[in-house]
């Protein structure tokens, strides 16, 4: 054994000298000529990667003859690939001890691929095997997402059902939410004080649904503002959000019959940078002294900076966000907070249109379903039937 170790070192030195850029895997295969016993067979299976766009295969292997001690000594698995089992295999990677699976990607759909796995301990080729062919292909339906599909269809049909029945004149009861009722009062207060209203649509881009919810609340606020002859200031972080906010405010003024009151300079862009934006909004609060500040949409660390500055300038503050980490700060400093889902419900509430309230009903039924499933899943899991819970483990 010592001798073979010495030989290994000589070969290693020579091969390093011959191929200065030789990779680790190649060094080992040069040594494999010095093994003293035939390698054990590795059973290699190659299958198409399920639910993928294509171009990927899964290679799995096992070594049935190896005992746990031998398995433990195999510390490198060298994986090579070929499109023809009889021709040269190209080495693609080497994996650490204990690996039994490799996902190969970047392949061509519809072609055959064969894989060879060789297991080494430090200097011996202990086992090897070839498997295949595998043919990569892309799928037209992701079976892993069936639970989501069911959920989407259920939700959409329930919602549409409620919307239709609302159109037919069915009235829904929705309980009052403090933060939403405060919106109207806050606008009234601004009118009395003769001071403007500040509406911060958050740091989200228009590709966040929280921002879309902020648009609809802004629509309501702007409409009231127009009716009361006050002014609403909307500094923006994202230019697309600004464009939509301008559209919303302009529309609201037009709808209130006061299109001349709309001033494009009140709905403006600041900068797409978190804290410079915050600094500018702080400036607005301190100098224009708005009577009411609205923070609706996505907020990050700046939430508390804004809310404290607003407090210092003596404004009433109403916040709404689904950002979990920021809710506590808004709760501590603002007068009213729309937490999480309430932000999304607010637009339906404020419009009081029966169709909008219909989707609220669907949300509530969704919650009932979730609670039932949680209880059932918990009971099943407690009695050992874990596959029910696992079915919802969707990727």
């Amino acid at each position: 054994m010592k001798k073979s170790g010495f030989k290994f070192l000589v070969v290693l030195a020579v091969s390093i000298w011959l191929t200065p850029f030789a990779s680790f895997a190649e060094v080992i295969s040069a040594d494999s000529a010095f093994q003293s016993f035939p390698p054990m067979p590795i059973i290699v299976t190659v299958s198409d990667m399920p639910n993928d766009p294509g171009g990927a295969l899964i290679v799995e292997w096992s070594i049935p003859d190896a005992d746990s001690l031998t398995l433990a000594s195999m510390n490198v698995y060298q994986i090579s690939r070929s499109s023809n089992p009889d021709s040269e295999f190209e080495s693609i990677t080497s994996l650490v001890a204990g690996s039994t699976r490799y996902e190969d990607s970047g392949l061509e759909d519809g072609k055959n691929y064969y894989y060879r796995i060789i297991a080494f301990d430090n200097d011996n080729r202990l086992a090897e095997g070839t498997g295949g062919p595998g043919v990569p292909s892309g799928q037209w339906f992701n079976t892993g997402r069936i639970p989501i599909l069911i959920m989407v269809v259920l939700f959409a049909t329930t919602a549409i059902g409620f919307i239709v029945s609302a159109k037919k004149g069915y009235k829904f009861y929705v309980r009052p939410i403090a933060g939403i009722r405060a919106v109207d009062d806050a606008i009234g207060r601004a009118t009395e004080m003769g001071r403007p209203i500040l509406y911060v649509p958050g740091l989200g881009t228009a590709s966040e649904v929280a921002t879309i919810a902020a648009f609809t609340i802004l629509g309501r606020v702007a409409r009231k503002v127009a009716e009361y002859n006050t002014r609403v200031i909307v500094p923006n972080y994202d230019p697309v959000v600004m464009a939509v906010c301008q559209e919303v405010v302009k529309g609201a003024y037009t709808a209130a019959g006061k299109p001349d009151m709309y001033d494009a300079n009140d709905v403006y862009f600041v900068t797409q940078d978190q804290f410079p934006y915050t600094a500018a909004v702080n400036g607005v609060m301190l100098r224009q002294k708005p009577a009411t500040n609205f923070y609706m949409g996505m907020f990050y660390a700046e939430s508390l900076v804004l809310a404290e500055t607003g407090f210092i300038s003596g404004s009433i503050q109403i916040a709404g966000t689904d950002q979990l980490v920021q809710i506590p700060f808004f709760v501590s400093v603002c007068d009213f907070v729309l937490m999480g889902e309430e932000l999304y419900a607010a637009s339906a509430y404020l419009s009081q249109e029966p169709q909008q309230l219909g989707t609220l009903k669907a949300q509530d039924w969704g919650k009932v379903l979730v609670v039932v499933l949680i209880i059932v899943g918990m009971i099943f899991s407690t009695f050992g039937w874990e596959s029910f819970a696992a079915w919802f483990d969707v990727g």
Partner: protein
Amino acid sequence: MRREIPLVIVFLFGLFMIVQFFIPHRSFAFLYQEFNNWTIIIGIFTMVIGVGSLITVHYSKIRFKKPGWGYSIVTIVSLCGMSLIGLIGGTENELFLNLYRYGLSPVTSTMFSLLAYFIASAAYRAFRARTVVATLLLISAVVVMLGRVPIGQIITAWLPEWLQLQNIADFLLQTPNVAAKRAIYIGVGLGVAAVSLKIILGIERTWLGGDGGK
């Protein structure tokens, strides 16, 4: 036409994006990627409008000599200066990088660090045991605040282990905190689905202006 076409666009593309979620095939993945890129490209074009708006606001302040118009000059000059340096000299040139390192970056981190002060004054003002709810907020905040630093361990080291502050803090973070998070997230998922559905179906159309498109 002015309202119908946008509503058709919203319906068709919204539906497509829902459908593609369930179809992993390469062709759909390609379109998904493309459409996402399109939104970014639209965003970049809109940036021109955004910057135009920023300049207009400050220009009108300067023109009508509104209070503080001098500061507006600073904004316009620094905006033009920084963008020209970056556009002409590239983003790797030393002056551009230094303005970032020694101009933008310290302001960002200092604004961020103001939170240390604000968090203290907010805690002083808001954490009063007025109601049960406020008391719970207050107690859990204090326990976690002390439990996360050595002092919390020092002052409760004499107690049995499960009563020591750091362990209570861990319990709060890993149990009620997780429950609160889950309740909010489950609701948010449903709320987002509802708003998205309303947008796609054209029920929610505040964004079209004119009070919901009427």
